[in-house]
């Protein structure tokens, strides 16, 4: 019953999305208020039915209704409540429904906020309607989560144990808020092209909250995924340049470029067509990422059940959405062109450079991810594009971008003065110099790359602090940018610390054996059995020693998930906030002896802290935006002023 209710809701939502698409695009005409009202109503109805469908599926999971195939395949009665819920989206069908839920939320927000005027809103709803219809057709025809299972099994197969983890549970919703948020920016860009001047003038301002939301959630989603990989996979690494990770990094890079380019469009009417193109490009990257992950072109923990028809469907969807948008762009963009006037030394130029480096670094990720697939398809030759490739291509391009980051906000629009802009920043150069000397003097082993990264982080952090002190009480935007840029520096410190100065030990240990790693001495005390709700674990007790004194005990674990028959290693991490001690239990060598891997990663927590700081910068910027429209601006002001202190 609940399954049919969900399926029916999806059908209603499909019908309403088609109405929304039609009425929305008709509503883009100047005098078509009726169509606009219909589009608004259809958007609300669409929202309601998607929420119903999602609710129905969640209910089925909570009830362990194994008559639904997806529930039977991804849940068990023994699964803890939180993983019954996260199992909803931890498989292909459910994750597509989550995608729709997020899309419905954005659609509702577009309709209710009505930013950019009635015509832009209607056209944006029309584009969202088209996208929603395409995705709903995809779900209904290739991946319905409501299909029945006959005969109904007594027990489900259970969620992939790797995904039974808080980080893995939160990662997809975050990422989807980012991906789908880019579809909202895309819808606004297409709306601007449909509506044309002069009503399209404010589209960048109208779309800004959606771009920011997308960027913030993408940042958090990527960081969460990286953190999850770090503590789950058991090798101390935080980024593997895996195709799936790259699939989320590409939209982030383009979204970052979009956020910066849109600043110039909004403030100065500059780069109008370029910003439109980036909005199209950002969502294209989301779609390509989805295609890579869902089609089975690559295999990973994310490729749940890969199926060629799904890949083909997504490929057609990409062709239609991207091709259609680009055709619209080619047709309408020339009429939107506004001649920007600025000097070579100006904020406009800096924002252009930002875009140049971000596009090129995205190209490195794009080519690195897709080239092996293309080469294999065309010539049958198999190559691996591993981390060394990105170290040679992506890293220097992105590093060059970082050097320019602090200059942008300091230069004036239209015509800036480099000397004047640099003058207050000299102390930051001092900080960078001290960082180099300190690193070369203290850290061992000596590393020029590490020193360079620290110099860059010093430059970024120093300039951010200068900027924050200067901007106290000034406009929110500059303050938020300084915070976000400081976040880059924090992450950079973490990445450098972990990559360059990680120490590790790998050994076979029996009870009472000691192992030294970095500054720590560990003592292995043996293994005990633990029974979880849906797994059997073997847990090591490892003492952290100070001479003969035990200062702490760490407990890495090996788990066998009974229903799924899968081994999962649970790492034990002890952090000082600036350094991680990381233990992973390896395999059983018999006679109570086990392999043990231990890593000491200096500054590792800063990698994710930096991402959080970046997201905080984005959130402050978003708050500043929304405050302009809020009825009581005073309520938010004291909090923000305190944050500025």
């Amino acid at each position: 019953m609940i399954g049919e209710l969900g399926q029916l809701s999806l059908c209603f939502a499909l019908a309403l999305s088609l109405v929304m698409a039609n009425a929305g695009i008709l509503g883009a005409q100047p005098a078509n208020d009726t169509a606009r009202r219909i589009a608004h109503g259809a958007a609300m109805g669409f929202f309601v039915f998607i929420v119903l469908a999602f609710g129905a599926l969640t209910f089925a999971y909570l009830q362990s209704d194994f008559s639904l195939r997806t529930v039977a395949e991804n849940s068990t009665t023994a699964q803890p409540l939180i993983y019954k819920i996260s199992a909803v989206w931890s498989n292909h069908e459910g994750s597509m429904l989550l995608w729709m839920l997020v899309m419905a939320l954005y659609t509702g927000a577009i309709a209710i906020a009505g930013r950019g005027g009635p015509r832009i809103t209607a056209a944006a709803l029309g584009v969202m309607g088209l996208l929603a219809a395409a995705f709903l057709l995809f779900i209904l025809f290739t991946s319905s989560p409501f299909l029945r299972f006959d005969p109904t099994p007594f027990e489900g197969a259970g969620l992939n144990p790797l995904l039974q983890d808080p980080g893995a549970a939160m990662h997809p919703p975050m990422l989807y808020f980012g991906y789908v948020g880019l579809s909202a920016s895309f819808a606004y860009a297409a709306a601007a092209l449909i509506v044309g001047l002069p009503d399209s003038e404010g589209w960048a301002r109208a779309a800004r909250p959606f771009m920011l939301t997308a960027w913030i959630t993408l940042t958090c989603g990527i960081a969460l995924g990286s953190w999850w990989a770090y503590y789950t996979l058991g090798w101390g690494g935080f980024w593997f340049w895996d195709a799936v990770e790259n699939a989320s990094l590409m939209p982030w890079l383009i979204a970052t470029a979009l956020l910066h380019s849109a600043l110039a469009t909004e403030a100065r009417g500059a780069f109008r067509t370029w910003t439109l193109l980036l909005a199209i490009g950002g969502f294209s990257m989301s779609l390509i990422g989805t295609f890579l992950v869902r089609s089975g072109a690559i295999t990973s923990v994310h490729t749940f059940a890969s199926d060629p028809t799904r890949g083909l469907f997504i490929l057609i969807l990409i062709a239609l959405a991207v091709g259609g948008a680009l055709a619209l762009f080619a047709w309408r963009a020339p009429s939107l062109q506004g001649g920007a006037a600025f000097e070579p030394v100006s904020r406009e130029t800096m924002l252009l450079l930002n875009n140049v480096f971000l596009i090129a670094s995205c190209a490195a990720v794009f080519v690195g991810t897709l080239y092996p697939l293309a080469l294999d398809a065309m010539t049958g030759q198999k190559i691996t594009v591993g981390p060394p490739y990105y170290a040679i291509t992506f890293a220097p391009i992105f590093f060059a971008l970082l050097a320019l980051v602090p200059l942008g906000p300091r230069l004036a629009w239209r015509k800036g003065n480099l000397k004047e802009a640099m003058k207050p920043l000299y102390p930051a150069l001092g900080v960078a110099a001290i960082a180099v000397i300190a690193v070369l003097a203290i850290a061992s082993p000596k590393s020029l790359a590490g020193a360079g990264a620290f110099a860059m982080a010093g430059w970024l952090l120093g300039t951010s602090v200068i900027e924050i002190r200067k901007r106290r009480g000034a406009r929110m935007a500059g303050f938020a940018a300084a915070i976000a840029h400081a976040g880059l520096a924090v992450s950079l410190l973490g990445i450098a610390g972990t990559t360059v100065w990680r120490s590790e030990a790998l050994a076979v240990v029996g009870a009472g054996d000691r192992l030294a790693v970095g500054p720590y001495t560990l003592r292995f005390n043996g293994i005990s059995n633990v029974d979880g709700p849906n797994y059997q674990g073997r847990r090591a007790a490892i003492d952290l020693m100070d001479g003969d004194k035990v200062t702490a005990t760490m407990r890495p674990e090996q788990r066998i998930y009974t229903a799924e028959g899968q081994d999962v290693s649970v790492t034990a991490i002890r952090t000082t906030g600036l350094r991680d001690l990381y233990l992973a239990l390896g395999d059983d060598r018999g006679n109570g002896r086990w392999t043990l891997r231990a890593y000491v990663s200096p500054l590792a927590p800063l990698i994710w802290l930096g991402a959080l700081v970046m997201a905080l910068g984005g959130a402050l910027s978003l708050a500043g935006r929304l405050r302009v429209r809020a009825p009581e601006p005073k309520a938010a002001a004291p909090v923000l002023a305190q944050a500025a202190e």
Partner: protein
Amino acid sequence: MKRWMLALLLLIGANFAAPVLQDGAKAAAVEGSFADPVQEARARTLQRQLRCLVCQGQSIDESNAPLAADLRGLVRQQIADGRSDDQIKDYLKARYGDFILMQPPLEQATWLLWLAPFLVLGAAGGVAWLAVSRARKAAASLDSQNITNL
């Protein structure tokens, strides 16, 4: 601010002053590892540059797969036999193809892979340069029309 930055730097730096304590480290080395730290470091570096053929993008250094263990043994055997890093990589490449190298070689099939990011960088830079020079002309013509208070 400088004092504040220095304090932060010192705090961060303290994490790197890391003398390795060796008091009573009795844990046994994993079978096959070299007693000579130089050789061991070489083996680890090489292992990181070689892909585990049956895993998802992991190197043989960080894989539990039996094949990865075999390949680690092979690398270490060759190091013990006195082969150079390049010889070992060439040997493995001849046996398993380019697929085993984490860093794709620069050859006819891959030059585009290696150049593409920099070609895009150049192209985007060129477009930006055109845009800036056009904007500069526009700004100059605006100035000549004496509209200076924009």
